[in-house]
């Protein structure tokens, strides 16, 4: 039967038979935390299919690194996951140090752990603030950014930069801690648990918050592993896996902390896991403050790799030569390959570095947690309501700079 009376026009399907609609979400949607585009096929309010479209922030960092000396890559790593620059610095430095077979002084390791945990708190605060704002609890954002400002001031004090810190260097850290820094960290660490109580007062038992989050975007532990999620998203479905404890790096084996988990696997569970992580991180910072070695070197004793102290460079001929050689020619790294994984605020952040024995890395690949976690989004959303997509995106805590690199 012809469905149209217009000659020459044939309609294959009956009008109204097509019940689904394609909805384009992003790339400029404010709740996608960057430039994520989601192509959503919906049937009424139910999602039939959802497909992430990424690459809008692809800057080719992996290609750029191949034309840089090893030490010149550190500032590039800041810009991958811009909410936890120090974790990126740490992963890259640890990987190159592993290639070099280099030993790092204890004080430098403890400084790294302390700043890394402060970075985790910083990242979780941005996540909590924006996630709550997406869902409609605008006030939490202001509270979170109040504490984040304190942290950014601390980062500025230690590195001169609020966000793109580049503070960790291959072989240690760039400068010793400034005077009065540890006191300020202590001040922050002492009052921060009360701040977390404040956030929890606003959210944890809030009926609106619970209604929007409980039972939303569930994922089973089997699916979560199969889809490659790591970090809080994986721990919220009951898999107790944290690289800080299970594959310790940078002296994490010296610290006592719990790994918060939940067996529920929904958005609310991920919220609870991350809030608990805030408390555990501040515990690690307190342990760092108590056990921080008083004085000692902050760089490895490797004059051919680590830049000399400024004072030595100005007074000693040898140091000046080493400085000149490192800056102009770089340093060679023995041929080989390493994969160094670190527990970033989002999950397993891994750097795979291949060296061919020259002063420039042959290949640097970043395994970014956001990229892998984003694959779980369709499994979380399909068959469920369109209104919950924003909660699901917030709960996997992606950073688009990290996804696209």
């Amino acid at each position: 039967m012809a469905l149209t009376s217009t000659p020459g026009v044939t309609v294959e399907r009956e009008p109204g038979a097509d019940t689904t609609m394609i909805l384009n979400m992003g790339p400029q949607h404010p709740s996608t935390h960057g430039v994520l585009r989601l192509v959503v096929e919906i049937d009424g309010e139910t999602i039939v299919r959802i497909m992430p479209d990424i690459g809008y922030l692809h800057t080719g960092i992996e290609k750029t690194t191949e034309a840089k000396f090893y030490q010149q890559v550190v500032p590039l790593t800041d810009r991958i996951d811009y909410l936890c620059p120090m974790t990126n610095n740490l992963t890259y430095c640890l990987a190159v140090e592993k290639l070099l077979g280099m030993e790092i002084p204890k004080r430098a390791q403890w400084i790294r752990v302390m700043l890394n945990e402060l970075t985790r708190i910083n990242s979780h605060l941005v996540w909590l603030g924006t996630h709550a704002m997406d869902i409609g609890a605008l006030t939490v954002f202001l509270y979170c950014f109040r504490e984040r400002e304190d942290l950014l001031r601390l980062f500025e004090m230690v590195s001169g930069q609020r966000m793109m810190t580049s503070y960790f260097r291959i072989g240690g850290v760039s400068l010793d801690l400034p005077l009065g820094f540890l006191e300020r960290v202590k001040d922050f660490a002492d009052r921060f648990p009360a701040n977390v109580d404040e956030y929890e007062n606003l959210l944890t038992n809030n009926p609106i918050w619970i209604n929007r989050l409980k039972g939303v975007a569930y994922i089973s532990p089997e699916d979560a592993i199969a889809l490659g999620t790591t970090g809080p998203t994986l721990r919220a479905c009951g898999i107790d896996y944290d690289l800080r404890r299970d594959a310790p790096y940078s002296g994490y084996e010296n610290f006592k902390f719990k790994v918060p988990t939940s067996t529920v696997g929904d958005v609310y569970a991920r919220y609870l896991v991350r809030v608990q992580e805030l408390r555990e991180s501040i515990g690690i910072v307190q342990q760092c403050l108590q056990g921080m070695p008083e004085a000692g070197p902050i760089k490895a004793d490797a004059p051919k790799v680590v830049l000399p102290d400024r004072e030595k460079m100005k007074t000693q001929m040898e140091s000046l030569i080493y400085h000149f050689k490192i800056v102009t020619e770089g340093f060679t790294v023995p041929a080989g390959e390493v994969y160094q994984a670190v527990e970033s605020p989002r999950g397993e952040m891994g750097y795979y570095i291949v060296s061919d024995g020259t002063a420039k890395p042959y290949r640097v690949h970043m395994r970014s947690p956001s990229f892998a976690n984003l694959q779980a989004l369709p499994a979380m959303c399909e068959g469920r309501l369109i209104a919950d997509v924003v909660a699901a995106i917030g709960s996997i805590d992606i950073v688009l700079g990290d996804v696209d690199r």
Partner: protein
Amino acid sequence: MALTPAITDIEQLRDKPEVEALLGWNQAAIAGAKFDRNELTIWLNRDQLIPAMQFLRDNEATRFNLLSDVTCVDWFPSEPRFEVVYQITSIPRKTRMRVKVKLDSSDTRIASVISVWPSSNFFEREVFDLFGIQFEGHPYMKRIMMPEDWKGHPLRKDYPVEGYR
């Protein structure tokens, strides 16, 4: 932590449960092994990739249930030019290892491990986009980072850093 020379003789690596299990399963699947800087690498033959990966995931002694990463290294101009690199992790055993497959530049096809680990989806698309490796059996082999109409594969070594002028 001074560097020790890499062990490349597979017989000396029999104390590693992964190597022992793979050798007991199918000796012909392994093309080489290396233990360097505390990391184990095994080269597999291309045609044995999927059964070997399935074995590594399911076998009691290995249980590599998480695929952490898939990437590629271009050794231009030497042949075999490409090495596809899989980082696999065992959450219950808390260990990781690296699996590699070498590919000639004349035939850049390899089986997709998406049937073993669905998480390889985005990773394989990225390797296809940036290196031009074809993953056979992947349901959606399209560019992921670069624009759809992009010409060339940017992470290849014969692709200049600043792009073509």
